[in-house]
């Protein structure tokens, strides 16, 4: 069995005054250790909690609610840091493309009167397959895969890279 008081390296020796420098220093250190431990634990704890956006939006993005996209209309949405466009054809089919015009990177828009994707900058036109119909664009628009997630009025349009 150990002899308790003297065997321990941190054993107290003396110091009966109401205030001694030693215990003040110990208290100071204790406060310091606790606060630095908290300063380290707090970021770690916050880090561990998953952020609201869930996961890296590398390959998928939510393009809005399915019920809000009427036939023969289109909507711009954010795909990573580039714009995308989701279109509902007159027959009700959903299609999505990159909204970055292949000519000079302007953002294209949906034109309901011609049911085509149109770039306002230099009049580039694409059909609903992403192919160039007329104008300066050298290449078509990249097509994405569209899925519906959920049911009823809350169903979401989920766009992902093919």
């Amino acid at each position, binding site marked *: 069995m150990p002899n308790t008081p003297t065997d321990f390296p941190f054993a107290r020796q003396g110091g009966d005054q109401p205030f001694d*420098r*030693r215990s003040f*220093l*110990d208290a*100071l*250190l204790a*406060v*310091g*250790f606790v*606060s*630095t431990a908290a*300063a380290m634990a707090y970021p770690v704890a916050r880090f561990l909690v998953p952020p609201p956006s869930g996961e890296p939006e590398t390959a998928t993005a939510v393009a809005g609610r399915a019920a809000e996209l009427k036939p023969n209309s289109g909507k711009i949405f*954010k795909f*990573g*840091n*580039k*714009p995308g466009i989701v279109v509902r054809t007159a027959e009700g089919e959903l299609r999505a493309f990159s909204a*970055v015009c292949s000519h*000079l*990177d*302007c*953002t294209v828009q949906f034109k309901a009167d011609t049911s085509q994707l149109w770039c*306002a*900058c*230099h*009049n580039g036109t694409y059909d609903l397959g992403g192919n160039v119909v007329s*104008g*300066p664009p*050298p290449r078509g628009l990249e097509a994405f895969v569209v899925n519906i997630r959920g049911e009823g009025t809350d169903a979401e349009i989920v766009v992902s890279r093919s």
Partner: protein
Amino acid sequence: MLLLLLALAAAPEANNCVTCHTTQQDQRLARPAVLFSETDVHRERGFACIDCHGGDPTTPDKAKAHDPARLFKGKPVGQAVVTTCARCHSDAGLMRTYAPRQRVDQATEYAASVHGKQLAAGDQRVATCVSCHGAHGVRLVSDAKSPVFPTSVATTCASCHADAKHMEGYKLADGSTLPTSQLADYRKSVHFAAMTRNNDLSAPTCNDCHGNHGAAPPGVGAIANVCGTCHAVFAQKFELSVHSQIFDKGCVECHGNHAVLKPSDEMLSATGHGICVPCHNGDDKNDSGAKAAVGMRGDIEGLKTRLDQARSLIAGVKNSGIEVSDDELALREAATKLTLARTEVHTFEPARVTEVIADATKIVGGIDQAGQRGVAELKYRRRGLALSLGAILLVVVGLALKVRQIDQQHR
């Protein structure tokens, strides 16, 4: 008689033309036969030498084979070439059986072209059908090895038009010599780059602006229409401007005809190397055109500067860990507006450019605000760090004192 000859021609065995000509020493006689035996669109569809040259392919005897009585025509030259080709190619009924979508008005177009008119006037130096398409070894236009495949058109035209000796004596409408620098100029252009580097076969080459068979320079007043077939928006804007009434050469006045280079904002200036300089004087205070140039250019440069500033602000903030994808999207929108502003310049009305720039400035303002919020977030982090460092300092000082205390105790 013709039907009998055609029937005989259809039989592949009886083609003494080829067997005799390919063995000739003289390359001028041998080569056509060799070429025709290789890839040739006409031969592949069942046509033979006699369909253009006449004669008798069934006999190895030269005199009999080349008998004019057997409709031997020899080598067609000049107008005879056009007639020979047009015999089939202007026959809509015939062409429908081989290539229903192909046009049948090439000969008519050709007659309206500079080449056709010169030929009618007796000039044998001009191009005819075979000059561009070849006579033997003809390939479809869509065949990459054809001399009139889009990427080869310029070199084919240049085989005459860049040859100073061949073009000697030809003059422009105003009496000056016809230049031979078109190919060299075209090779510097963005159109050439688009076709060769970006493999964009829809990029213009000689025939897209001058026409194929009806080849001629577009002519005064027509240029904006020609460029406008692709650059529709610019043509529309230009149509609204004062310059459309003044410029003879439309788009070409500022952008050149063959050496069309990538335009830059530096062009928009009435001083130094700006293209407004020949007509406008930047030093003249009464020159409203020069003032307009200054106004438009100032607007655009201002937006560019603000865009660059916004970009670096966002990039810096992003690097420090702030989420900025919405702002990057907005930067894109602002950059789109810059492109639109440059398009609007072609109306040559500063007010319209200012309007577009104003939209862009609003967007950039929003981005700046977001950037400032990011900077504020960074400041907040620094405060957090300062607090932590304070706590650490406390511990460090405490430890240092404790160490001293324990050391003293130890002694």
